[in-house]
């Protein structure tokens, strides 16, 4: 113990307060465990790299009007298909003379929009189905899990295609289609967590205090499912971004002239052999963001979910 305590002498007080072994209140314990998680996360340089890229993405999306050198929608047919490093157009222009850099910057907003919407819909739906199935049990469990299995057995992209075909093309419908195919794994995880929790002593204690099933599920089971869900969502985000870009590429997601990255690749595809940068640059952007999510997810898994370290 003394070994651990000695370096605290020359540390600022807030650090020793955060690193204490004997928290004085519930909030103190919470903040301290967050801080210690952050310390171990910070040691993972790859995960930090992912986090930095994503923070940059958010900043770019927020400040897009300030950062973009041109209007992403204004066409300039005299200056079409200009190569990289042209005056005023660092990343060149596309087939309608629009500045590619500006379109990429505004495209960050669309990517974030999709990511946030899916991250709000799919895991919440999965959490709800999974915890109810796990806690209630019996035939409710059987029916809910059978439905989950059916969706799980589906080919995801093809199902999303069929949904979009029926609902009509567009970002919102793409988000719905992706969410409809993405929720089953979350339900599985949430159910597994619930099954391990539901018979534990503290649940019995809460029950004795008179809590009903609704309160038990929302206040005592959900919080414990969150961390494994967060890890899974982060790791899935890469796949979601790729699926959204794929739908955009097929002309089923965001519609032109929207600067969605997948749709931009599709537009540039016709000129790929002569004007390679038009299609390749948006692809690099997609790659960078989904790589960042994969790295961040790996790092978060190490911190939040140490039982499954993936090695």
């Amino acid at each position, binding site marked *: 113990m003394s070994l651990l305590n000695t370096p605290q002498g020359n540390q600022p007080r807030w650090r020793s307060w955060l690193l204490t072994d004997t928290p004085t209140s519930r909030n103190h314990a919470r903040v301290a465990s967050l801080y210690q998680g952050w310390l171990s996360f910070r040691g993972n340089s790859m995960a930090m790299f992912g986090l930095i890229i994503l923070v940059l993405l958010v900043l770019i999306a927020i400040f897009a009007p300030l950062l973009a050198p041109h209007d992403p929608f204004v066409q300039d047919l005299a200056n079409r298909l200009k190569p990289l490093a042209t005056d005023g157009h660092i990343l060149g222009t596309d087939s309608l003379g629009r500045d590619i850099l500006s379109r990429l910057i505004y495209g960050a907003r669309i990517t974030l929009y999709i990511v946030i919407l899916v991250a709000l819909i799919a895991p919440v739906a999965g959490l709800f189905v999974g915890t109810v199935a796990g806690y209630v049990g019996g035939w409710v469990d059987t029916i809910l899990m*059978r*439905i989950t*299995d*059916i969706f799980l*057995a*589906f*080919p*995801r*992209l*093809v*199902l999303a*295609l*069929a*949904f*979009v*075909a*029926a*609902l009509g093309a567009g970002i919102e419908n793409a988000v719905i289609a992706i969410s409809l195919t993405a929720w089953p794994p979350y339900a599985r995880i949430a159910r597994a967590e619930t099954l391990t929790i539901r018979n534990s002593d503290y649940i019995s204690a809460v029950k004795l205090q008179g809590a009903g099933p609704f309160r038990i599920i929302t206040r005592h089971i959900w919080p414990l499912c969150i961390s494994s869900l967060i890890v899974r969502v982060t790791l899935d985000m*890469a*796949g979601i971004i*790729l699926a959204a*870009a*794929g739908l955009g*590429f*097929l*002309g*089923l997601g965001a519609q032109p002239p929207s600067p969605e990255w*997948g749709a931009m*690749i599709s537009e540039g*595809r016709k000129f*790929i*052999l002569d004007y*390679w940068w038009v*299609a*390749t640059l*948006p*692809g690099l952007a*997609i*790659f960078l963001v*989904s*790589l960042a*999510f*994969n*790295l961040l997810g790996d790092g978060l898994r190490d911190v939040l979910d140490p039982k499954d370290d*993936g*090695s």
Partner: protein
Amino acid sequence: MTIQAEPGKGRRRSPLTSIAISTFKTTGTILATMLGLLFVTFIIGRVMPIDPVISIVGERASKETYEAAYQAMGLDKPIIIQFFYYIWDILHGDFGQSLLNARPVAEDIRRVFPATLELATLGTFIGVLIGVPLGVLAAVRRGSWIDQIARFVALIGYSMPIFWLGLVGLLIFYGILGWVGGPGRVGIFYVDVVPSVTGMILVDSLLDGNWTVFKDAMSHIILPASLLGYYSLAYISRMTRSFMLEQMNAEYITTARVKGLSEWTVIWRHAFGNIKVQLITVIALSYAGLLEGSVLTEIIFAWPGIGSYITTALLSADMNAVLGGTVVVGLVFVCLNVFSDLLYKFFDPRAK
């Protein structure tokens, strides 16, 4: 150590009944899943569009035409009856007519499916051939440079948009270097040269003994197949690595080494022998994934498979063709899933 039979847990049923029960259960699961699949496609096709009749007869159709189509489609019947009709038709191999070319969808699918099968099979083959040894090496030399490379390769594979990589591949290997054939299955001079037996052009040209066509077809398929192969490699190598790591830490491996067996025997006979079953399930899953994942690849390479078929139909609002394609891909997917499950149960005594 002897294992004592616990009272009440002994095998009371004869083995035959227990097999019968498990077969019954499995069949029930498959049927329920397939019924669910059909139900979802049914909902998508008949219920979700605002008016399925208008999407067929067009907005300017007269009232009589509209009524006739309405009756012909059975839309005056209750939904549940419509659903039974739908299943009945599909059981008879009838997916309706394509609105584009007025041919039966089932016939179209039979024509395009072999192309996808060919692509996905070659892709899985490449993925297994490279992915398995890479995963094993990464596990055996954990933390070494080869492990880092395997990790890097998989990470890129998980993060790269496949359609973009296909475009870049076309640009480099076809556009700049000219090493491979361009989009399509064969060059324009070789179309329909060999008689179609299986629908898979590599097999057909071999059966015909036509090496020129075989070589040309190979130069066309190699790029898209490598692309799919890369994605399956990323997955297979990661899974192989984690399976192998589990085995390499086991005590029987230490025992084998203490006995003085060569490292080769320890790794490939003892450890690898134990992960074979798990590996086959992973490969089956990745194969199913490729059958589906080929949608975008087929578009890029103008590959006339089921992915192109569904997408083309989609863009021209040909719902029968879209749903027919979805059902077929879904059924194959479910079958492969079940197959890998059964394989696991059959070969792995621990799963019983």
